[in-house]
């Protein structure tokens, strides 16, 4: 049965309505970031800026670092976020890839209990851990350092990588690695030489989700960081929003920059998301 013309018109109209609802706030974020303050603070919003300006982006990228300069803070916070999220993703992916393999292919005692305890950790509210973690990091001299953040973020992102990678391995046929084992490979050798090259789509998607998790994290960074030494971009934006809520132009420019890496990743990996969701538990 071919769908009727009326039906086709209807679903396309619905899709356009949906697209407008989704895209309008994004458009307003971008427009606000390039509108001069006088236009942002006019009695009626200017949907299209009459005198668009890139001055805020220029400010963020070129202003000298100083404790009070918000634009410079945004730039440094972006750098911190990039370093922390990348390091977290790489470490979590490495240990999660190996550990996930153990869960998928080896049979050992307490396998299910171990898997569930990793998953339980992933679901713990950060507010329940933040006080003792703060004190522990203080004792180790890791407060307000990127290292301190990477260490804590890995404890969230690793269980996630472990779970999704384990599910990914389960969807792969075991014959290949068995062949490699017969040829004299060790477990680890088979994993590195045979499985990982085949698991590349799974690795990339898991890495993308992990990066987004780390990039989005807020509470730990809020409590553990105090200066531009380690402050991440969500904290910089939240702080500035609270202090100078009327200067939205600069917040918007910071927001556009903070949104760019995760949005690009999500667009690149869009076609894998459905498959990733069926195989693993993704943070909803």
């Amino acid at each position: 049965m071919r769908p009727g013309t009326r039906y086709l018109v209807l679903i396309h109209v619905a899709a356009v309505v949906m697209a407008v609802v989704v895209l309008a706030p994004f458009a307003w974020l971008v427009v606000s970031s390039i509108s001069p303050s006088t236009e942002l603070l006019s009695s009626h919003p200017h949907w299209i800026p009459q005198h668009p300006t890139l001055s805020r982006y220029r400010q963020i990228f070129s202003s000298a670092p100083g404790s009070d300069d918000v634009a410079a803070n945004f730039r440094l916070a972006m750098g911190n976020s990039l370093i922390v999220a990348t390091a977290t993703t790489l470490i979590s992916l490495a240990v999660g890839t190996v550990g996930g393999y153990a869960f998928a292919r080896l049979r050992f005692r307490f396998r299910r209990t171990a898997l569930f305890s990793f998953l339980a950790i992933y679901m713990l509210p950060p507010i329940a851990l933040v006080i003792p973690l703060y004190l522990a990091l203080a004792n180790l001299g890791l407060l307000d350092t990127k290292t301190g953040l990477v260490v804590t973020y890995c404890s969230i992102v690793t269980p996630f990588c472990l779970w999704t990678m384990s599910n990914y391995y389960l969807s792969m046929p075991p014959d290949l690695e068995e062949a490699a084992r017969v040829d004299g490979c060790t477990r680890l050798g088979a994993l590195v030489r045979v499985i990982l090259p085949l698991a590349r789509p799974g690795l990339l998607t898991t890495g993308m989700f992990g990066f987004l998790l780390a990039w989005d994290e807020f509470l730990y960074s809020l409590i553990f960081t105090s200066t531009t030494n380690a402050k991440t971009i969500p904290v910089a934006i939240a702080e500035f929003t609270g202090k100078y809520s009327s200067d939205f132009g600069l917040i918007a420019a910071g927001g556009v920059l903070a949104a760019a890496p995760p949005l690009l990743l999500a667009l690149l990996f869009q076609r894998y998301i459905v498959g990733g969701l069926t195989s693993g538990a993704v943070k909803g």
Partner: protein
Amino acid sequence: MALLLPAAVVVFGVVLYPVIRTFVVSLYDVNSPMAGAYPFVGLHNYTRVFQDSGFYPVLGHTLYFTLVSTFAELTLGIAVALLLNAPLKARWLWRSIVVLPWALPTIVNGALWRWIYNGQYGALNGVLDSLGISHTPHQWLGSPFLALNMVILADVWKNTSIVVFFILAGLQTIPADLYEAARMDGAGAWKAFWRVTLPLLAPSIAVVLILRTIEAFKVFDIIYVMTGGGPASGTQTIAFYTYLQAFSNQLFGYGAALAYLIVIAVFVLAMAYLRILRQGQMAGVE
């Protein structure tokens, strides 16, 4: 087993001590960040939660936030997923659009909607004015109950996105011949939806329902950036209240007890989640 060691060190090395330590702190009357001898109070911090008259409204906001946001995200999510599964032209384009709010960082989303809701210069008042719906500016975040609903709206706008992809994944496992059979039996599109689509989506719906409930129950970030819990504490949720007790009032013992109550609630939900996952796997529905 050696393969698991690195992951175990990375995760439990960080988490094990705080998990235990928070529980210990919840048994003492700790009221400063300094180390020292604090009086042991047993479960007093837990019973105190239920005698705390400030706690009940906070619990109310949390339940309201959780129920309304989860229900809205699920209904909208199913509708959009069905749309994306329909024979649209340039399907990849629509899917790419829908994925965007999910990838937007939570804090940026909160800051953006706070700006949209701004009573003087906000885009929402501007749109209502342009469309001739309302010419008087509204203070969207100015009164407690309205503010709570507006925060929920911002949350729904962002998080419906991931629900769509969960449901879409579920829709793609439904074999086409089932619809064929339903049509043979004379069922229309509406009937096919209730008789075929919805029952077969049940595992996906259950999974997404529980995951969203857990997230909504822990909600903190968007409250922090949009309203700071105000006005008149009207948007304070349990996680936010816990944060205030511990970090503003320095009641670390009480804060730890509150945190453990969230942990218990999340665990009950997580157990239900795992059960459904296991049943799904046994029934061959992944």
